[in-house]
């Protein structure tokens, strides 16, 4: 008997035949990544959960339009990106009154509260586009061509956003990490 890992493409093929359980399997593989991507963009757990549900519903409704099953990840994150920015456009007038960092102020387990605060503050100083580039590259690990697919813009633009964001953050964050402190002690 030969065991083979079930690929996303296998699940997508089953979903296209009307298998809802296969889609639930696909959701369980991707929901945490999508939720955290949206959480880092919106900084709001409730919004992120609602948006995640909308993202997967749209993915289910449009899965027949996905040309290449191997590109499911970027395609799913493209939907998530559209949903998030659609929400931003709806809420733009009240953006000034919101506290975008409220959800991330709790210290991360295992990290010092001051470092958590520094990281959140640094992220919140970025524009939404810069922050999204950082989230997709640093937290989600997408390649530049996948990010280009997700964001619908050229790789050069994405690199510019990412590297500008890192330049802005490194002066603040690099000395704050334990490694930097150790280097400082040395």
């Amino acid at each position, binding site marked *: 008997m030969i065991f083979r890992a079930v690929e996303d493409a296998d699940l997508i093929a089953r979903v296209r035949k009307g298998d809802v359980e296969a889609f639930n399997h696909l959701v369980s593989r991707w929901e945490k990544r999508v939720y955290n991507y949206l959480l880092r963009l919106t900084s709001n757990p409730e919004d992120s959960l609602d948006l995640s549900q909308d993202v997967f519903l749209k993915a289910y409704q449009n899965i027949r339009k996905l040309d290449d099953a191997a590109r499911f990840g970027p395609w799913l994150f493209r939907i998530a990106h559209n949903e998030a920015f659609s929400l931003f456009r709806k809420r733009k007038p009240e953006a000034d009154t919101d506290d975008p960092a409220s959800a991330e102020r709790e210290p991360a387990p295992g990290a010092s509260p001051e470092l958590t605060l520094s990281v959140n503050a640094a992220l919140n100083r970025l524009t939404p586009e810069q922050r999204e580039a950082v989230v997709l590259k640093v937290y989600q690990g997408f390649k530049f061509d996948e990010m280009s697919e997700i964001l619908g813009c050229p790789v050069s633009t994405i690199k510019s956003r990412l590297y500008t964001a890192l330049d802005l953050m*490194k002066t603040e964050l690099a000395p704050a990490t334990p*490694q930097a402190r150790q280097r400082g002690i040395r």
Partner: protein
Amino acid sequence: MTTCDRAEALRDYAFDELAAGERREMERHLTACTDCAAELDQLRLTTAALRILPDREIPQRIAFVSDKIFEPSPAARFFRSGFFSSAWAGFASAAIMAVALLFTAFHRPAEIRTVVQTASAADVNRRIDAAVATAVADAVRQVRAEDAKTAKETLAAAELRYEREHRFLLASMEQNMEVLQKRLGTFTSLASLDVPQIASQNGAGQ
């Protein structure tokens, strides 16, 4: 920030976006360029700091339930299967168009031609005169033919009447002749008889 002209390649290297050859080249460069080595160090520290924020667990699992009411019918699945997709519809319409074009090319109906002719006023007048003359000649010919026919019929009727009258006269004359011949016969026979006999007969009669 490094002032080295390979700053962008260095960042691509930090995010593992360089091809194998470029990667080896960058590794050689890093052993020689202290600016780039420091920049790489700082980039790695920054990303490491960012990764301190861990992923959160989703507070509520997302799951979809299959409901027969909302499931597409077999017909809807067939229509969604791709056979009636926009590409197929486009192909089908193009094929129908091609067949229609071929049909019209080989079965062209008789052309209806509209010819517009231009003519001068003199031409028009001449044509009108000719048409009028033709119409008048036709009318005269028709009237003459009708007159000739009427005259012929009248003559035939008169001849017939004359013949009948002639026959009637002949018959009357024949009858008169017969009467006269009878009377003549009577007188002749009387003339051959004796006068006394006549007188006696007359006297006996009185």
